[in-house]
C-alpha cells in the first residue's frame, strides 16, 4: 500500500474511532437523562431531579470531549481526503452542512442552559432544554449516518460533466433506505452504551453500599432501557442491516462471515480463524445451514462466497473485518443474555441484593464501547476497497498534496493530544462517580430527605 494512503487511512480511522467513544455515551445518556427528568417532573421527585443533575455532570464532561474530538472530523474530509471531497462534496456537503446548521446550534445552545441554567429556568423549561439537547445529539447522528450511508450505498446523485457527483434528489439522498436502518441500529447501540454505563455505576454504588437510593434508580432505569435496546439491536435493526449488506454488498457479507467458497446450506461460523492462504476457516465452530437461513430465510439457499467475486473487489483486510463482525455479534448476544437475566431479577425484586448480578453489570461497562467500535469497523472495513461504493476507490480519494510525512506529523500530534484528553476525561469522570450524586449539592439532598 502507498504509504501516504496508509497514513491518511490511519489518520481518519484513529481520530474517528477515538471520537466515537464519546458521542455514543452522549446520545445514549441524553435519552436516559430525558427519562429521568420526565419522571422527576411528573412525580415532582427531588431524588430524580438530583439523579438527572448527577448524570448531567458526567454528560457535560463527556460532551466536551465529544465536541473537541468531533471538530477535527468535519475538517478531515478536506485536509486528508481532498480528492474525495471534491468528488462527492456536491452531495455529502448537504448533510454535513445540515448537521452544523440544525444539530450543533440546537445542541450547543441548550446544553449551556441545561447544565448552567437550572436556577434561571422554570422546571418545565429546564426539562425542555434537556429534550433539546437530546434532539440535537440524535439529529446530529442522523446526518452523519446519512453521509456514511451515501458512501455505502450511493443514491440520489448524478455524475456532472467534470466527473464529480452532484445532488439529483434531496429526499432520495436524505432518506436513503440504508441510512434509515443503519441509523436505527447505530442509535440503539448508543442507547446500549448509555444504559450499561448507568447500570454499571448504579451497581457500583449498590455493591459499595454508597448512595444506594440512587444506585437503585440507576440500575432500574439502565436495565429496563438496556434490555429493550439490546433486543432491538439484534432484531429488527441488526437483521435488516445484515440483509442490506447481503443485497448490496454481497462480497462484504462473504468476507464478514469468512465464507471463502460459495455453497448451498452455508454454515454460520461462530468462532474460528480465517486462513486466507488456504481459503478456509481454521478450527471452525459453526451452525450448519444457519447463514443460508439468516440471509435468504431458507436452510438450503445458495450463498455466494468470496470466490464469486474478482479479487480486486474484496475488502482489503478480511481477517480484521471478520473479527470485528464476530466480536460485534458475540457481544450483542451477550448483552441480551445479561439484560434479560437482570430484568427478570428486577421484575422479582431481587436484583438489588443479587451481588453476583451487580458484579456482572458493573464489569460489563467496557463491552458496549467495544461492540460499537467493532460495529463501525465492520461497516467501514466492509466498504473497502471502495470509498464511495462502486464509484470511487479508497486509493483514489486521499489528498495528493499532503505527503506521508506531513500526515504522520499530525497523526502523531492527535495521538498525543487524545492520550491527554482520554486520561483527563477518565480522571474527571471517576471523580464525579466518587463524589456521588449528592457530592456537591448536599443541601438539596438534606432538604429532600426532610421533605419526605
Amino acid at each position: 500500500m502507498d504509504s501516504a494512503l496508509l497514513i491518511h487511512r490511519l489518520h481518519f480511522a484513529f481520530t474517528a474511532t477515538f471520537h466515537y467513544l464519546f458521542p455514543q455515551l452522549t446520545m445514549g445518556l441524553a435519552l436516559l437523562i430525558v427519562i429521568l427528568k420526565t419522571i422527576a417532573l411528573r412525580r415532582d421527585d427531588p431524588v430524580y431531579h438530583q439523579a438527572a443533575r448527577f448524570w448531567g455532570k458526567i454528560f457535560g464532561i463527556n460532551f466536551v470531549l465529544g465536541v473537541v474530538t468531533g471538530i477535527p472530523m468535519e475538517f478531515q474530509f478536506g485536509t486528508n481526503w481532498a480528492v474525495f471531497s471534491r468528488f462527492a462534496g456536491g452531495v455529502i456537503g448537504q448533510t454535513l452542512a445540515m448537521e452544523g446548521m440544525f444539530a450543533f446550534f440546537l445542541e450547543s445552545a441548550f446544553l449551556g442552559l441545561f447544565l448552567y441554567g437550572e436556577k434561571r429556568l422554570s422546571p418545565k423549561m429546564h426539562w425542555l432544554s434537556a429534550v433539546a439537547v437530546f434532539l440535537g445529539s440524535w439529529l446530529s447522528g442522523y446526518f452523519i449516518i446519512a453521509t456514511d450511508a451515501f458512501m455505502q450505498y450511493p443514491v440520489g446523485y448524478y455524475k456532472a460533466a467534470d466527473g464529480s457527483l452532484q445532488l439529483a434528489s434531496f429526499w432520495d439522498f436524505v432518506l436513503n433506505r440504508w441510512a434509515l436502518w443503519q441509523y436505527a441500529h447505530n442509535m440503539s447501540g448508543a442507547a446500549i452504551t448509555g444504559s450499561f454505563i448507568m447500570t454499571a455505576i448504579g451497581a457500583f454504588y449498590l455493591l459499595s453500599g454508597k448512595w444506594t437510593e440512587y444506585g437503585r434508580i440507576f440500575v432500574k432505569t439502565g436495565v429496563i432501557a438496556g434490555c429493550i435496546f439490546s433486543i432491538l439491536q439484534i432484531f429488527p435493526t441488526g437483521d435488516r442491516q445484515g440483509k442490506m449488506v447481503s443485497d448490496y454488498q454481497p462480497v462484504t457479507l462473504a468476507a464478514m462471515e469468512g465464507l471463502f467458497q460459495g455453497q448451498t446450506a452455508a454454515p454460520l461460523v461462530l468462532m474460528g480463524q480465517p486462513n486466507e492462504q488456504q481459503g478456509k476457516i481454521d478450527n471452525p465452530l459453526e451452525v450448519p445451514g444457519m447463514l443460508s437461513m439468516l440471509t435468504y430465510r431458507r436452510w438450503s439457499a445458495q450463498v455466494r462466497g468470496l470466490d464469486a467475486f474478482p479479487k480486486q473487489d474484496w475488502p482489503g483486510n478480511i481477517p480484521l473485518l471478520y473479527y470485528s463482525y464476530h466480536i460485534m455479534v458475540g457481544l450483542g448476544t451477550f448483552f441480551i443474555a445479561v439484560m434479560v437475566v437482570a430484568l427478570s431479577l428486577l421484575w422479582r425484586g431481587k436484583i438489588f441484593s443479587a451481588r453476583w448480578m451487580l458484579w456482572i453489570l458493573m464489569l460489563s461497562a467496557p463491552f458496549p464501547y467495544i461492540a460499537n467500535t467493532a460495529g463501525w469497523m465492520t461497516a467501514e472495513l466492509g466498504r473497502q476497497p471502495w470509498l464511495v461504493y462502486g464509484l470511487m476507490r479508497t486509493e483514489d480519494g486521499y489528498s495528493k498534496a499532503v505527503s506521508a510525512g506531513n500526515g504522520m506529523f499530525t497523526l502523531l500530534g492527535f495521538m498525543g493530544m487524545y492520550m491527554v484528553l482520554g486520561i483527563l476525561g477518565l480522571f474527571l469522570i471517576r471523580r464525579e462517580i466518587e463524589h456521588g450524586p449528592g457530592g456537591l449539592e448536599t443541601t438539596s439532598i438534606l432538604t429532600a430527605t426532610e421533605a419526605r
Partner: protein
Amino acid sequence: MGSLWFWIVAVMVTAYVVLDGFDLGAGVIYLLAAKTDGEKRRVLRAIGPVWDGNEVWLLAAGGTLYFAFPQLYASSFSGFYLPLNMVLWLLMFRAIGIEFRAHIDNSVWQEFFDVLFSVASILLCIFFGAALGNVVRGVPLDATGYFFEPLWTNFRLGPQTGILDWYTVLIGVMALVTLAAHGSHYVGLKTDEDLGRRARGFALLCWPVQFFLTCVTLLATYFIRPDIMTNYANHRIGVLVPIVVFSTLGVMLWATPKGKEKIAFIASSLYIVGMLVGAAFALYPVVLPARDHQYDLTIQNTSAGAHGLSVGLIWWSLAAVLALGYFAFVYRMFRGKVQAGEGHY
C-alpha cells in the same frame, strides 16, 4: 446562485469572528485582566454559557463552505493542512481550559488550565489572522487546483509562499489586537468593579495600536496586491467599508472612557464586520486567489451543482432562523452583569 452562497459563507465567517472573537479576546486578556481567582471565574462565567455556541459558527461555516463550494473546501483544507490541524489542537486545548478548570478546586490544577486557555486563545487569534492574510495574499495553486503550503519559507512573498511571511504575520498581529480589544469590551460590558475597570483600561490601551495597525495593514495590502482595489473602483458602494471601519474606531474611542460599554462593544463588532466584509468585497468573485492569477479559484469553478444549491437555500434559511432564535434566547437568559459567586466555573 453561487454569488448568494459566497455572501452567505462570508456572513457566517463574520458572525463567527464577531461572536467567538469576544471569547477569544477575553482569553487574550485573561491572565492580565483577571488578577484573583474570583475574577477569573467571572471572566469564565461571562463566556461559559455561550462560547461553545459561538464556536459552532465555525463548524457551521465550514460545513456550509463544504456544501456550497466543495472544490474550494478540498483545495484550501488540504493546502492549509498544517496550520489547520494546529488550529484544531489549539481549539481543543482552549475548550478543556475553559471547561475542566472548575472541576477541581486546586490552585495548581487551575493555574495549568488558566495558562492553557489564555495561550491557546492568543495563538488562535494570530492563526486566524494569518489565515485571512493567506487568503487575501493568494496561495501557490497550480493547474491541478491544489497547493500545499509549508509553515514558512523565507518570510518573503515569492512564488512558493509559506503560511507565515511578513504580510500574514502582520495580519495575525492585527487580528490579535483587534480581538483583544473586542474581548476587553465584552468583559467590560459583562463585569463590574475592578475587573470591569481593568478590562475597559485594556480596551483603551489597544485603541492606538488598533488604529495604527488598521492603517498599516490597509497600505500593506494595497502594496502587495494593487489589484485588490478593482472592485472598489468599479462599485461605489465599496466606499461604505472605510466609512464603517473608521467611524466605528471613532465611536470606540469616544464610548470606552465614558463607560458606555454596550456602544463600544457594538462598535467593535461592526468594526470587525467592516474589515471582513471589506476583504470579501475585494476578493469577489474569487474565493481563493492563486499567486498566478490564471489558477484563481472562483465562485464559478468551485461551486456545487445548481440543484443542490437551490435545495440548500430552503433548509439553510430554515435552520438559520432557528439558530438565531436559540441565540436570542440563550443571550437573553444569561443577560446582564456576571455576579460574584454564582453557578459553575
